[in-house]
């Protein structure tokens, strides 16, 4: 089972994503932004980082890399694709997922362990979760505010395409949570991740690949992304 991980200039989490694939029992395959081949992989991860320095807009230049010219039609044809953080931004810029990412509303970089709720457990990347599962994985971003117009948001919610939502701590409770009472980047309707209609393309801001191994990260909650896709590929 081969899972490709694309490296763009400025990708940071490609090695962790490959490691997560291996921990889950898959075979990671390195893909290069300048190649126009997917090397016969069964699924692809677009990793986090700052491709092209986030110049122009986060993901805007990566979206036109040669590898995307083969990845976009493959994703439209049903190839499972997961975009994490910068990868999510690239998927939005590619219009494989609706909406866009802009700067965090509080204008500062965040790096924290973030609680999320699984809102769609039927996608290629989430089928090992149960609907309503609460997971904790790292979140680290500058441009993590998910925005879209109201009709797009209504459509996403109506079709069950919000895959993950930020869990917001109660502001009235005694807490040291800096983001109590609000989500950590201003994302509309607390959206942390979404899926396309078919469920093969998923993008999210937090990082499941940093929570797959004992002793590293806040939990092992991220591992099911990778075990899910391995199963979906077998069943495809």
């Amino acid at each position, binding site marked *: 089972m081969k899972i490709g991980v694309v490296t763009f200039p400025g990708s940071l989490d490609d090695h962790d994503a490959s490691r997560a694939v291996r921990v889950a029992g898959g075979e990671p395959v390195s893909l290069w932004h300048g190649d126009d081949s997917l090397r016969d992989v069964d699924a692809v991860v677009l990793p986090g980082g700052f491709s092209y320095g986030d110049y122009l807009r986060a993901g805007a230049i990566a979206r036109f890399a040669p590898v995307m010219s083969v990845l976009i039609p493959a994703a439209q044809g049903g190839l499972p694709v997961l975009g994490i953080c910068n990868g999510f931004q690239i998927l939005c810029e590619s219009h494989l997922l609706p909406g866009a990412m*802009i700067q965090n509303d509080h204008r500062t970089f965040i790096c924290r362990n973030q609680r999320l709720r699984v809102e769609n457990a039927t996608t290629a990347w989430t089928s090992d979760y149960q609907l309503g599962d609460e997971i904790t994985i790292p979140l680290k971003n500058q441009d993590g505010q998910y925005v879209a117009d109201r009709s797009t948001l209504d459509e996403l919610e109506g079709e069950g395409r919000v895959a993950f939502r930020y869990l917001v701590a109660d502001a009235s409770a005694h807490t040291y949570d800096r983001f109590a009472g609000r989500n950590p980047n201003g994302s509309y309707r607390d959206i942390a991740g979404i899926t396309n209609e078919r469920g093969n393309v998923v993008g999210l801001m937090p990082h499941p690949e940093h929570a797959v191994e004992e002793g590293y990260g806040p939990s092992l909650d991220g591992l099911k992304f990778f075990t899910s896709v391995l199963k979906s590929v077998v069943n495809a």
Partner: protein
Amino acid sequence: MGNVVVDVMLKSEILDPQGQAVAGALPRLGFNQFTDVRQGKRFVLSVEGEVTDEVLAAAREAAETMLSNPVIEDVVSVRVESQA
């Protein structure tokens, strides 16, 4: 050599964190009269020779497909830069 100038702004309904930061800092210098700041982007596209209609059309296409993201931004203007 001719230049085409493309101006891109965040849509009005999209929060502009950078503009807000600038708006928050202006009063510290005594500028109290500005109630809001929006920050945009300007691109200057240069070509050999004159800016023909074809060049302008290509600039418009580039502005719509790459220089802006229609989900969050508007191309405010695409125009030939007047020679000084």
